[in-house]
């Protein structure tokens, strides 16, 4: 309250006297008061705020099952430093090691290593007790050996990424000749279909980000707002960049359809990175058994993404090279995502990537809708557009059931 008042004063001063020094001063004065306020609260005024009892809080972010050992990554997510003093497996006290040490400052992480002969596919609850006797736990549904980034797994994840990312997108691109041969009216239907597909993907990304927040991220990160902020920033950044890109399309010697296709490919690429993360993390955390059925589901689902790129590209000259390039931009991130998710899963970066992907997709939606509107006599409510959008969503929903 005080600071807003001061801010207003500064503003009025600026209006009254526009000399440069005073303008600078009036801009700085609120900051000075803010600093005084903060200094007071941390210094002499700290007693005033000694209300309530700050409770320790730690979160077990990750549990890895190694040979004869369980490794637990723990983060202090509470308002005070804590001391991790005891570990247990299934509520039975176990001796353990903690690296680098048992004292955790706010947001600091440590690795707890519990020697334990665990059994594959059995559920385990890992508990950690802090110095005031409070116990925090996390459950693993089925213990599975942790993935180490050896060549075999790097190759396996690359293969999975190719199956769920690159191949389906490439197949989707094969619709290009078909889209090219149909009338403008029907063409709009397919553009709208693309929008429907993208809309679904965007919502899907957000949902996945929420899941990571719920399962792995501490409340102190404000997960939901982190997602919202990242989406908006990603959207704005890409929107600004794309306006520049499509505006300069001619000078960059690429056509507008290619520019839009590129944008869609990048948006989908970011989404596929998130999808790869989810797959890699799920395998790495042992929360799913990776089945052929799941891969088939993802593949069918992602074929629609290739179509989304093909639709705008159908308006320009067919350039096989560029088309393949866009397909790779959209597809290959799935491989990278699987690597990161499987070998170096971090809930925070996962949320960030998924949210950037969602923002990118919404940005693409706006671009495509704008394009349809410009071409279709300022009309977004034609039967072909509305039905295209609806069918796009439906197709995605139906193929998503397979996943």
């Amino acid at each position: 309250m005080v600071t807003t008042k001061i801010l207003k004063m500064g503003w009025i001063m600026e209006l009254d006297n526009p000399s440069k020094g005073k303008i600078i001063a009036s801009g700085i004065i609120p900051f000075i008061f803010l600093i005084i306020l903060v200094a007071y609260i941390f210094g002499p005024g700290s007693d005033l705020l000694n209300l309530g009892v700050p409770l320790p809080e730690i979160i077990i972010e990750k549990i890895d099952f190694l040979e004869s050992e369980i490794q637990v990554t723990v983060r202090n997510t509470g308002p005070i430093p804590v001391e991790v003093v005891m570990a247990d497996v299934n509520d039975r006290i176990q001796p353990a090691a903690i690296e680098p040490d048992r004292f955790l400052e706010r947001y600091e992480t440590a690795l707890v290593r519990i020697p334990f002969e665990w059994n594959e596919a059995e559920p385990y609850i890992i508990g950690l007790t802090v110095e005031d006797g409070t116990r925090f736990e996390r459950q693993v549904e089925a213990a599975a050996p942790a993935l180490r980034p050896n060549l075999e797994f790097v190759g396996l994840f690359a293969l999975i990424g190719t199956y769920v990312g690159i191949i389906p997108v490439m197949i989707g691109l094969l619709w290009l000749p078909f889209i090219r041969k149909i009338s403008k009216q029907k063409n709009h239907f397919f553009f709208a279909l693309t929008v429907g597909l993208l809309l679904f993907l965007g919502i899907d990304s957000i949902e996945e980000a929420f899941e990571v927040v719920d399962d792995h991220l501490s409340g102190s990160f404000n997960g939901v707002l982190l997602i919202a902020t990242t989406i908006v920033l990603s959207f704005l950044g890409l929107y600004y960049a794309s306006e520049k890109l499509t505006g300069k399309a001619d000078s960059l010697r690429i056509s507008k359809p290619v520019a839009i296709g590129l944008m869609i490919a990048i948006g989908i690429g970011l989404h596929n990175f998130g999808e790869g993360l989810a797959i890699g993390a799920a395998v790495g955390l042992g929360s799913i058994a990776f089945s052929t059925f799941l891969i088939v589901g993802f593949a069918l689902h992602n074929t629609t993404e290739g179509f989304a790129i093909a639709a705008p590209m159908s308006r320009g000259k067919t350039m096989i090279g560029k088309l393949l390039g866009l397909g790779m931009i959209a597809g290959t991130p799935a491989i990278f995502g699987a690597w990161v998710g499987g070998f170096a899963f971090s809930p925070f970066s996962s949320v960030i990537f998924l949210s950037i992907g969602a923002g990118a997709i919404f940005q693409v939606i706006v671009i495509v809708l704008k394009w349809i509107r410009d071409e279709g006599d300022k009309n977004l409510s034609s039967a072909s557009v509305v039905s295209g959008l609806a069918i796009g969503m439906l197709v995605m929903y139906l193929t998503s059931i397979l996943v």
Partner: protein
Amino acid sequence: MVFILFGMFGISVVLVIPTISEAQLEKKTFVTHTGGVISTTGEVIDPLYVASTMEFDPMKFLREFNYGKVSQLSDGSTLREFTIIAEDDKIMEISPGVFYNVWTFNGTVPGPTIRATEGDLVKINFINNGSKEHTMHFHGIHPAEMDGVFESVGSGGGRFTYEFEAGPVGVHPYHCHIMPLEEHIVHGLYGVFIVDPKEKRSPADEMVMVLNGFDTDFDTENNFYAANTIPFYYQHHPIQIQTNQKIRVYVVNMVEFDPINNLHLHGNLYHYYPTGTDTVPSFYTDMVTLSQTERGIMEFEYLYPGKYLFHAHKVEFSEKGWIGIFLVKDGDHQDSQNGVDYGT
């Protein structure tokens, strides 16, 4: 925008690479309380290794009996006077590194082991220095107004004198009986009251084991169990006894929340006197089951030297601290001459 993609690839490489390269820091090796070996660059968290400032000494408590201030009354009977002070503001390290607000009689959990002979007049000057009301409720035979239930003793120095004739013979618990009762008990307001028979039990190496637990996160489930408060204590510090020496253990189960507790002895069986009220043992066994405040006396002798476990055969309890070791050494005496003479 292509930069974002490249950035993404860059980040993935940065994230993956460190997990491949193994950090080369100096490793230290520890043997843990389960016997397993840990090699680490960090520190060990084990009830054995975490630096401890423990002030309660279970080894001292084990064989410590409080006979009170003794005087003779005009009718020839013995008067035993005790002063018991209740407090409820103490933070104690109940397991290495774990701090808990204990409520205490005379500063410890359990409170002092009060001992008298059948027929003695027991007089307890009770002072409540806590911030809540407390009482002392003895299991045994006494007038209603000495029962420590309806005569709550006020906080901040309230006083009450409990007076009754010691009886019946046996081992009994005493505890605070203020509501909410469970809260007052689980915080530590309990102890043991032993009434010896007039004709004395045979000499023996005598000890007290209060089976207790602590619910440090207040979820009505115990996080720790122990014989005499400190988890795993007698495992790291075995109780030293001798072969062919009669051992007499006064066992009192004060565990709350869990309906039962039990005691299993390795490499031996014991004669069991439920509640200690009879001089003839009821069982010869290596396993008794105890409900809340259920108690008894166990007597046994070891023939062979070595290390013998004793623990709850409810294994959850033993894996949370209720486990110990008797270290039996060769006794050089003929019979039970080393028995602690009691009843002074």
